[in-house]
């Protein structure tokens, strides 16, 4: 039964890669409509795998995912109309300009032409890229690419925005700029699901936070609740107390094709 106040409902989500590598082990959580939800964890905790399962970029082994009341795997395109995703790796078409990419994605979301046009102008202004909109994206700096990627994920005004490390590699000015945009989007009613390594980012933006470690959610709550529950003064302290350090256990996608396999034979 779908919970109407929840826009993302994840129940007993499991991902096991070949070789019995358990990346995600029975994760259950809900994200409320309009909530700014933070998903934290050390490298290899299973955050990105979980987020990729939420958009079906990684197939779940078992469990259930409901997005806006829709079962993900049975309603892929309906779900894709409702979500935007700015991924950790900023994949852009380097042979296209920013304007061309926004226009293409507008068409592929089947938006009317006048709306595409107005959205392009609005978003370019939002991320302060109007002056370079007709330059090839290959000429953009890291910060410009990040900002443009955010704009691209917003072209269809999604209900839910997934952000995987959206400010990684950005200078403080660009980071503040992105934070401002995200707050504004959230105030307008957009649900935001954020993974980040920056504790101050999670603290500044997120209403509620889940911390994941070794494929499981170890604690969930508001920053104040987490600090009280774990007797910590800061979110970073909560993070360290609940996860410890897992260096050396980083996530490896064992399904990725190995181009050197034949060469080693």
């Amino acid at each position, binding site marked *: 039964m779908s919970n109407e106040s929840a826009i993302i409902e994840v129940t007993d989500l499991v991902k096991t890669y070949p070789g019995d590598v358990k990346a995600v082990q029975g994760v259950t959580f809900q994200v409320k409509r309009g909530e700014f939800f933070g998903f934290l964890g050390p490298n290899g905790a299973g955050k990105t795998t979980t987020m990729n399962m939420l*958009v*079906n*970029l990684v*197939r779940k082994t078992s469990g259930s995912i409901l997005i806006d009341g829709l079962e993900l795997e049975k309603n*892929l*395109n*309906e779900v*894709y*109309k409702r*979500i935007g*995703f700015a*991924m950790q*790796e*900023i*994949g*852009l*078409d*380097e*042979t*296209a300009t920013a304007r*061309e990419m926004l226009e*293409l*994605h507008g*068409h*592929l*979301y*089947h938006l009317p032409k006048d709306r595409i046009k107005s959205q392009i102008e609005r978003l370019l202004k939002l991320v302060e890229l109007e002056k370079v909109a007709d330059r*090839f994206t290959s000429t953009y700096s890291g910060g410009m690419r990040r900002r443009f990627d955010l704009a*691209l994920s917003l072209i269809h005004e999604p209900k839910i925005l997934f952000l995987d490390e959206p400010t990684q590699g950005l200078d403080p000015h660009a980071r503040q700029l992105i934070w401002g945009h995200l707050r504004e989007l959230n105030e307008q009613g957009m649900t935001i699901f954020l993974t980040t390594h920056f504790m101050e980012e999670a603290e500044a933006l997120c209403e509620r936070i889940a911390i994941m470690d070794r494929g499981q959610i170890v604690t969930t709550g508001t920053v104040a609740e987490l600090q009280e529950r774990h007797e910590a003064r800061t979110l970073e302290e909560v993070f360290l107390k609940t996860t410890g350090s897992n260096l050396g256990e980083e996530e490896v996608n064992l399904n*990725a*094709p190995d*181009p050197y396999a034949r060469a080693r034979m």
Partner: protein
Amino acid sequence: MDTFFSDWYYLSIRNIKQIWRPALALLPAIFMPVFFFLVNASSLSAFAKVPGFPNVPYRDFIAPVAIFTAIFFSAGNAGIELVQDITNGYFKKLIILPINRLTIVLSKLTEVAVQAVLQGLIILVLLLAVGVHFATGFLGILAIFGLLIIFAMAWSCLSMISALRTQNARLVQSMFVLVFPFLYLTTSQAPLNLLPPTFRLIATYNPVTYIVEGTRALVLSGWSNPAIGEGFLTAGIMFVVLVSLTLASFQKALK
């Protein structure tokens, strides 16, 4: 279904723009066939006097190969572009769009077809300029383009399969070497009866021989030559088999 064709159209436009971005990347695919045609047509022209050679100038005999070579050298670009999309992460963006994912592959094939026509036209102008006569006239030229488009789409699938299965740019680029055995172990330079026995045997089993012969029949003979039908049949079979394998690889990549 109502958005299938519009998705295909917009993705095709995106891919077609990649053909000339950067424009310099087009040069090798034009230069190579022009170079080989001009060099071979002049240096090997005496070959046309060998007993058993068809009664046509050597220049006309190798004219179809010039168009063919352009397509051979450019059809692999589809796989290279695809692997670039995969490795830089843009492919992931495409597959979480609310589109029919089949249009991602179809739009690549459309790009290949458009590129084949553009490059074929450039070579055609050159061939007409140097006096090559097309026995089947304007309709024959259209048929040549039809045959070459089918073949170009089929051939491009090899690089796309490689892109989808290995996701490795260097491996996809290395598929380029296949051009040489498939193009030169055929009747591209000499008629079958003048090839040494081993080459003749290989050429007989090389499907590209039938495409070359079909194209050549449209240039030199006339509509009654059965090689035309054999060429279309071979290209059609290659198209069905290789596009099916590409779609299977695509489905596997999505999983």
